């Protein structure tokens, strides 16, 4: 059963001429599921989360969270959700515990319940020993953990995480991803936004791929990868004549798409890498170019995005 139902959600800033950030997005999230919105920066992921958090009023459409409309029942929606914003939104001159106590009060917790939940969350984010230290003394990763802990204080039914791993070290990222999986195992529903393909692929039960404010594909990892079939992702570096070579390679049998990425590599989708690779080398040699680097990747979400938009999902 869907706990989040998004129906033709739309947001235009400064209408009628302003940016159309979200353009008729629809999807559902089942209870206890991790659903990721995957897309490049500016795709409309954060705007979608802001509308589902009742922070922004939709220009059109609606969404129901835990059975309540974000347009007409904002208070009930806010009681059901926990929001982890993209940037750390805490008070640096207050300690971790003071922050949690304050935010707990904002979520309506009081007295013993508040104290108990703060203690539990401090355990969960493994900051019991540092609870009395001011946040300004914390590392980026520790702040991120408190940032997530705040949203868990009132045991929300749905947790929104807006790119919570941006700009942190690999160890903290691993810790956060493990924590999210643990929350899902406890039955929490999670809406996760990211532009890291690997995170979406690892965490999600289902993924929605967004680009330019539109939902371009929704499904499980397997369902999405099936869109590109058995195609492999081949990246080639050559010593010169890149544009001409990409044109030549696009005509090689077995190549379904060929383009140049931002780092001046040739990016190709091929049906059978073992058969196609020798032909690519032959074509390069015939043109007087030398291939200096090759990488072959099995089908993944990055390729799905490439396949659907013709652009690489920039990480």
């Amino acid at each position, binding site marked *: 059963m869907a706990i989040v139902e998004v129906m033709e959600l739309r947001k235009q800033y400064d209408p009628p001429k302003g940016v159309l950030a979200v353009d008729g997005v629809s999807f559902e999230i089942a209870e206890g599921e991790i659903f990721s919105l995957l897309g490049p920066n500016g795709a409309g992921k954060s705007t979608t989360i802001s509308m589902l*958090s*009742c*922070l922004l*009023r939709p220009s059109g459409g609606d969404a129901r969270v835990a059975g309540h409309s974000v347009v007409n029942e904002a*208070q009930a929606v*806010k*009681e059901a*959700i926990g*929001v982890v*914003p993209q*940037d*750390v*939104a*805490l*008070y640096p*001159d*207050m300690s971790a515990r*003071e922050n949690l106590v*304050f*935010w707990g*009060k*904002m*979520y*309506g917790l*009081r007295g013993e319940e508040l104290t108990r939940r703060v203690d539990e969350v401090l355990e969960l984010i493994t900051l019991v020993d540092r609870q009395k230290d001011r946040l300004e003394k914390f590392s980026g990763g520790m702040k991120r953990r408190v940032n997530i802990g*705040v949203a868990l204080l009132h045991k929300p039914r749905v947790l929104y995480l807006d790119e919570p791993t941006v700009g942190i070290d690999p160890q903290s990222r691993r810790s956060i991803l493990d924590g999210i999986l643990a929350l899902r195992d406890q039955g929490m529903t999670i809406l996760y936004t990211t532009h890291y393909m690997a995170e979406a692929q690892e965490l999600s039960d289902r993924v929605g791929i967004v680009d330019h404010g539109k939902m371009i594909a929704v499904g499980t990892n397997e369902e999405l990868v099936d869109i590109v079939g058995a195609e492999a992702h081949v990246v080639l570096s050559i010593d010169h004549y890149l544009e001409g070579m990409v044109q030549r390679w696009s005509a090689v049998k077995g190549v379904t798409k060929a383009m140049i990425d931002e780092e001046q590599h040739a990016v190709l989708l091929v049906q059978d890498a073992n058969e196609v690779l020798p032909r690519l080398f032959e074509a390069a040699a015939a043109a007087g170019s030398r291939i200096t680097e090759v990488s072959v990747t099995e089908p993944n979400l990055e390729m799905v995005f490439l396949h659907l938009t013709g652009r690489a999902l920039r990480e």
Partner: protein
Amino acid sequence: MSRVLAIAFKDLRSTARNIPALAMMLAAPLALSALLGFAFGGGNGFSIAATKVAVVNLDRSVPTAGAQPAQPAAGQTVVGIMNSKDLKDILAVTSKPTVAAARKSVDDGKSAVAVIVPADLSKVLFGTNATARSAIELYQNPTQTVGAAITQSVVGQSLLAFNGARAAAVAAQSLALSAGNGARAGALAGAAAAAYVHQSERGSGGLTVAQRPPELTGGKKSKDIGVTGLVLAGMMVFFMFFGASNVARTILDEERAGTLPRLFTTPTSRQLILGGKFTSTFLTVLVQAIVLVVAGRLFFSIQWGALSAVSLLILVAAAVAASLGLMVISLVRTPAQAGAIGGGVYLVLALLGGNFAGTAQSGTTYATVQRLTPNGWLLVGWNSTLRGGGVGDIVLPLLVPLAFAIVFFAIAVLRFRRRFA
């Protein structure tokens, strides 16, 4: 309500941990008041240093014929008035033997003014020649205008009396001549002038001016107030505006830091969040005012007045400061704008309201302008309580700023509603 207090307590704690903000809110007004208070002679009244005056008296008494008593020397009378007990706090007089010595004293910066009494002063005063002229010379340091003005006023007052004496003499002479007693006319004129001068030396005659302070409610008499109290009241109101601005600005800071949008994602309503911000601003300036009033009492011995009146004034001042701070913040977009525009608004209000000039300009255009500002009315209230006034004496100085506060708050609420809708 507990959420409002949680927000207010959180902001108060942040302010208490912000040492520069505390210095601005508490130390600056106390330090400025102390400096200005000492500059104007301490806390017990408005006073300035006595003007140093060098006097050379060349005048001699005019001898009289026969059994007539000698005429008094007018020059000596002038010097006597300048040396009188009543003027000892204003003029510090030193006698010099010669005109050159008196002028040198001014040139050397040892005196602000030299008063040179001419040799013919008594002769002209007591003589019967109505067209004769004499002048007391004031030789002054051009930079010491206040001291020179005071000296000129004192000397001018003496000369006014002498000119009255002279007019009396001339009138007496005319009367004697018209009565056909020409032989005694000169003596009569001299006696009349002498009587006038004696009168001047002793003080006013039968007609006097009675000074009476304004009456307060309940028939109480208005007290004289110390300059430090007035200065600190002005500084307190001025810095309360800045203190409120600092706390209200946390709305913009939190908006930029993302904590305000995050607050809006919690079940706490936007009205409660803004209510918390107003409460924290109000409580901060309330604490600021209480600390300053207590510090003023302890450090400067300021008698602020009746507790009930002072308490009401503090509450209303805090309400004005908080609502004005919120209104200014509601009209700007960034902390930088808040600093620039807010600073300008508070400074202009302080200049118009008399925070730096006091409320002693009664009846002038400036006094009218002061009444157009909430701080001007608050200072009128403080002036009244410092003079011993009670709640009954500050009804308007309470109600008018309160009306300002309500208007400011309403504008702030409307603006914030639109911005955070």
